[in-house]
């Protein structure tokens, strides 16, 4: 396992580099805006404090001087007198993000009433993970079987249908299909609820079932749009492998075609397919924001949509950090899976 260990270390290092560069990039983008928000907040709180205090001022000038002094003191205390890229503040921000201390939101609150960005995001995260893990699993299963099925009959009618549906679905915006699904299945035929937010309380025993029922429509939409291209990718690799000599040798040895297809060809096609998983996960994660926004699924995507609506900058920034974290972690995991399935990678 020495090789695998070395590979793990190398990939982990890569992940840390990527994380850090994302962090720096995001900070460079939002640093000045963030500073301005903090400055405004301090100013407001100082004025508020002075208004509520018992100090009597002789005139407005004295009051203004007092307030200015207090503001300067506060700014020094928080460290706002230095720009965001000064070493002290930079390390501070990095440490804060690492413990997910993402500040306070301007308008939005979590369901328990907390204005802490971390609380808000952590409350929504499980829902996003639930929806997208489920859909990815379903797409993988359908894609693998359909792909292998089409590969086995390359050039047939079903194969052509499969390819055509892949091409079609890849140019549809998932969220638009979602809008059509809501229109069709929620308002024209009342089969599924239009808003994906369950109404029962989380403490209710029927909550899990209700959640699943509300999850159906977004799930169906995501699966419907994505499985075609998945099946196409699987087919592409499996067809390549079916033409290899060792498959022909197996066929000559009398091993049934089904066994060749599902246990030999699919297994050997796995490594490149996994790479594509990473890619499709990437795109589905980006799609998460819009799909959740359309369905009102109470996950991070809807939060994004609301935060953009209110221009709640701290929440938007926090969400970007967290989703980058999740995303990079997923890519890292698929890399390791790839290496596990394809031993050649470790040496390269």
């Amino acid at each position, binding site marked *: 396992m020495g090789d695998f260990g070395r590979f793990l270390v190398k990939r982990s290092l890569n992940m840390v580099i990527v994380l850090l560069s994302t962090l720096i990039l995001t900070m460079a983008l939002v640093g000045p805006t963030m500073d301005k928000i903090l400055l405004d907040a301090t100013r407001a709180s100082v004025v508020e404090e002075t208004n509520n205090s018992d100090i009597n001022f002789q005139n407005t000038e004295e009051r203004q001087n007092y307030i200015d002094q207090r503001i300067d003191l506060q700014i020094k205390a928080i460290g706002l007198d230095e720009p965001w890229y000064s070493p002290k503040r930079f390390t501070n921000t990095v440490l804060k993000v690492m413990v997910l201390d993402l500040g306070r939101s301007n308008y939005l609150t979590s369901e328990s009433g907390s204005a802490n960005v971390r609380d808000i995001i952590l409350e929504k995260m499980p829902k996003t993970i639930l929806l997208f893990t489920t859909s990815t699993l379903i797409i993988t299963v359908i894609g693998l079987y359909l792909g292998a099925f089409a590969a086995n009959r390359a050039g047939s009618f079903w194969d052509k249908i499969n390819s055509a549906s892949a091409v079609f679905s890849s140019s549809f915006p998932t969220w638009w*299909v979602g809008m059509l699904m809501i229109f069709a299945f*929620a*308002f024209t035929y009342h089969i599924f609820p239009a808003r994906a937010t369950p109404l029962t309380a989380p403490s209710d025993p029927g909550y899990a079932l209700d959640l699943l029922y509300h999850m159906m429509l977004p799930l169906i939409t995501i699966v419907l749009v994505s499985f075609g291209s998945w099946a196409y990718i699987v087919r592409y690799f499996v067809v390549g492998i079916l033409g290899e000599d060792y498959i022909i040798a197996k066929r000559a040895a009398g091993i049934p075609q089904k066994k060749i297809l599902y246990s030999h060809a699919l297994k050997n096609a796995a490594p490149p397919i996994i790479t594509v998983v990473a890619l499709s996960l990437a795109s589905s*994660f980006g799609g998460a924001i819009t799909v959740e926004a359309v369905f009102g699924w109470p996950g991070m995507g809807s939060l994004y949509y609301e935060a*953009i609506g209110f221009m709640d900058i701290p929440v938007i920034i926090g969400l970007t950090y967290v989703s980058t974290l999740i995303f990079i972690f997923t890519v890292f995991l698929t890399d390791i899976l790839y290496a596990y399935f394809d031993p050649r990678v470790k040496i390269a």
Partner: protein
Amino acid sequence: MPVWVNMLGLNLPEHLIMTAKDADKTSLLEGGVRIESHSYNFNFNYDSYPSDFMIMYSARYGAIQPAVQIDVLRPDGNEFQIYFASLPPSQNESNEFSARIFSTDRLIADSLAGYSSLFTYRVDPTSPQAMIFSHTDENKVLKGTYVIRNTFYLFDPRDTVVDSGVILGGKVYGIIGTDDLRRDLAVGLLWGAPVALFIGLTVSGAAVSIGLIYGVVAGYKGNRTDEGLMRINDVFYSLPTLPLLVILSVTIGRSIFLITGFLVIFGWVGMAKISRSLALQIKSLQYIEAARLMGQSDTRIIFKHIIPQLLPLTFASIAIAVPGAILGEAALSFLGLGDPSIPTWGQILHDAHSAGAMSRGLWWWIVPPGMMIAITGLAFVLIGNALDSIVNVRARRM
């Protein structure tokens, strides 16, 4: 709703706009008072009432205020006087005043209330569009030719009626229909087309070219350069596109050119990987070695000998990358972060979503913009696939 739904057996009133050109104008002098009347004739043969109507006029007058009267002549011979009022006093010698009388005007409801006795069933004068256009004995549309007559009483020879018009608010308009603010959706879709094509082609062209050069340089130079460049590529490869696009447009700006730039930043990664692996293959070919032995510079070899080999693939990649760019911009617009000064398909869908078009059943607002995105994307994917199968001989066999 679009006009063509009437072909499906429905008979909904079309939106009717009549200007002064369509009016029969008469003018007569009676005891020093000039009476100008503009009559609008139109056929109303639909199964449902118009959604509303609007009467516009503008007049130029001096010290004495003219009066305006509006009558409706119905096909059954009844004549309703629905509006009579004097124009506001003029501020100076020659004052041009223009106004719009809506069907919801209280004066119309008041004057129509006087005709309620004509009807054998209960009518509601506050919805004049139904009362004016209905049978007197049942709540159904009275079909036939209607005349709306605007009469102006002018008390000074210098006073003139400048303009008048009637708008009958229908339920269908245009080939695609309108949104809830009565904007023609067809215009929005047409305006969206060049924007989408611009974004798609610029982004994919720029991103693929950058990726091509980047990848070829990395592959050709090899060693440390390759390692370093590919590490940077890995970083970009691991960035979540949409969240960062959101941050970029929130903090930097939303102009269409900026959005194009942002999309390029995330678009070049895939092409760089492909072109690097191909450059590695081409690099070991003998003619490259020959060129190097002849002492040609690296730049010259890259641009003269390697990149031309990859050009067919580049064109295929550009075509295939177009839908991604269009979808990216549409997603951004849908989230409400598009360029506010330019209508795009994504923004139309954003408006539809925030106006609750799905729950209100406004399918003509949702389907066409998405279809446009899908069709445009599909066209480029098909072009790209066709190019790809010409370029990529190995793939054609499979």
